[in-house]
């Protein structure tokens, strides 16, 4: 009983231990809060990326590959629910007229400073609808000036000019509205007399409206055009050319196995073809975010180590001061192991209380982060976490019990080390030395 009793009184009579406790609390708090926000963020980003990507993508098809044979081959797989042909290209986009702005001169188009790079996806809206989320991407745009007039047929064939769907962010940035005219410049290498030459192709489009996928990176670079128009520009007379096929699966959980099956089925007719799940396709992006998370954990762990040094320092100080007591404790019947336990209990109590407070603080601040954020915004005009950048309604968080358990484990192990060394030194102290000299 004396171990607990003494440890408690040693601690309570020394407010400096609050320093170590506070340090541990801060470290645990940061590890829990920041990592839970980060994993919440990662979860949201994954969902956004998934919503912008089809379950499976077939690409690296040799030019010219026509869709018909490919479609049949794909349809043979039991897990394939629907497919959509795509022709993916790149180009430069120049707004021709902006509302309220004077029409731009058209002469030196390719060198115009406001031309923007755009990744073009030629689609057939009817085939695309059951495969990707295009219906939702169009429906999520609420601004009347940006909305597509006919969501059921966003890129009508019979229009005077072919339509183009731009992302909402691009339209807002370029100050474009539905109905505005833009010019697309494409380039393609052609063999002329056995020599490869770069050819520019140029065509006017009318902005049909905006789409938004929540995947910021996707929206930043992509635009949709009718696949027929793109074929007419790039592959006149070469048939229903595609260079990518979007695939929707019956059971997305079985994607990895399906990828292998589909790849093998296509490889004979299409050497070099690649098939990827939405995760594989965005692997680098998702991994990069994951890596940031790991680095953050490492940095925050350093706070924990520093806090442990604090505990170590305050406890070492106490042991030096309390060696005077070791003599009388031994005379009263304490063993070196008992002395060790007194100081170990002190260190573990500091760490445990710090850890528990840190967990409470971490969980509470994750729960109330949104309220805190709104308050900061209202009171000081500071936005701690600009959610609009990531298309988030609130600051996401994911409190993972396993992670909390890991933090607790690490904290206690560090605490044991920080307390163990001074406690061990105390236990090795010769009790007679403290009895002989005052």
């Amino acid at each position, binding site marked *: 009983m*004396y171990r607990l009793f003494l440890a408690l009184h040693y601690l309570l009579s020394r407010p400096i231990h609050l320093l170590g406790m506070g340090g541990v609390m801060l470290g645990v708090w940061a590890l829990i809060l920041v990592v839970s926000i980060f994993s919440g963020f990662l979860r949201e980003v994954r969902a956004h990326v998934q919503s912008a990507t089809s379950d499976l993508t077939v690409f690296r098809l040799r030019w010219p590959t026509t869709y018909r044979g490919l479609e049949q081959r794909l349809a043979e797989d039991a897990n394939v629910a629907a497919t959509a042909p795509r022709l993916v290209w790149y180009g430069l986009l120049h707004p021709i007229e902006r509302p309220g702005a004077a029409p731009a001169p058209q002469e030196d188009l390719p060198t115009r400073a406001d031309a923007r790079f755009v990744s073009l996806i030629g689609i057939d809206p009817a085939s695309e609808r059951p495969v990707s989320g295009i219906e939702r991407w169009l429906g999520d745009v609420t601004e009347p000036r940006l909305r597509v007039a006919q969501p059921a047929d966003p890129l009508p064939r019979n229009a005077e000019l072919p339509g183009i769907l731009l992302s909402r962010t691009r339209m807002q940035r370029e100050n474009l509205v539905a109905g505005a005219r833009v010019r697309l410049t494409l380039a393609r290498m052609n063999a002329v007399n056995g020599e490869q030459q770069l050819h520019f192709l140029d065509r006017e489009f009318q902005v049909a409206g905006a789409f938004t996928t929540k995947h910021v990176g996707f929206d930043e670079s992509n635009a949709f055009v009718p696949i027929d128009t793109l074929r007419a520009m790039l592959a006149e007379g070469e048939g229903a050319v595609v260079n990518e096929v979007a695939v929707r699966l019956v059971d997305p959980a079985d994607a990895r196995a399906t990828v292998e099956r589909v790849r093998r089925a296509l490889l004979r007719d299409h050497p070099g073809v690649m098939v990827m799940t939405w995760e594989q396709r965005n692997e680098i992006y998702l991994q990069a975010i994951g890596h940031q998370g790991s680095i953050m954990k490492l940095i925050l762990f350093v706070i924990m180590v520093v806090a442990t040094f604090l505990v170590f320092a305050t406890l070492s100080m106490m042991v030096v001061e309390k060696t005077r*007591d070791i003599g009388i404790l031994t005379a009263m019947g304490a063993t070196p192991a008992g002395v060790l336990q007194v100081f170990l209990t002190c260190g573990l109590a500091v760490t445990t209380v710090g850890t528990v407070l840190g967990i409470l603080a971490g969980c509470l601040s994750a729960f109330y982060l949104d309220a805190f954020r709104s308050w900061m915004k209202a009171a000081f005009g500071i936005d701690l976490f600009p959610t609009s950048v990531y298309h988030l309604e609130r600051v996401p968080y994911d409190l993972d019990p396993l992670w909390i358990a890991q933090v607790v484990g690490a904290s206690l192990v560090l605490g044991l080390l920080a307390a163990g060394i001074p406690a061990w030194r105390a236990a090795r102290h010769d009790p007679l030395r403290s009895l002989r000299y005052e």
Partner: protein
Amino acid sequence: MTQPVLSAEKVVKGYTLGGETIPVLRGVDFQVHAGEMVALLGASGAGKSTLLHVLGLLDPPDSGRILLAGQPVHDLPIRERAAIRHRQIGFVFQFYHLIPELTALQNVLLGRMMLTRPLAWLRERRAARARAVQLLESVGLGKRLRHRPAQLSGGERQRVAIARALIARPRVILADEPTGNLDSHTAAEVLEILFRIHREEGISFVLVTHNAELAARCHRIVRMKDGLVLG
């Protein structure tokens, strides 16, 4: 006389300092019987404190034996020696050695809880507290239970230390110059308390002292010189 409560047989003890062994006890024989009060007299460096530490199982002898009620105890495992110190032997030191963070009452109680597990302590706490209060009252500190050592005078601190040595009901108390740090008036008060306890409780005492007058009041005087017991 009856069998000694605590005895040393041919105890040799030396300290190594800078590679050289300095003999402190050179074959000491010593006994204290039940209810006996023995004064251990000698000049500084004669080995009085070392003998007390060896008798109290704080320091193992290099050779020779320590017997408690006839049983050799010097070579017992460390835990058992600690348990014997707790249950059978009380210590009073010149410099009191109170824990500064604890009140007088808590310091005394600490002497009672050394071998008690936390759960058992819950049951024994009341009785232990009552005994501690009674002991502090008997040494005249009934009104100073909640004072910390820093708020007590030297004499009061030594009285707390005496109460602490008594709480586990030891058979023998080893006191190392208990009044060495007190003025003569306070020393006399503290000594009166020690003699009264001896009378009332029948505990054996070994009193290390320089004070011949105090020694004269004891049952027996043992003189030490250069690590040996004289005559």
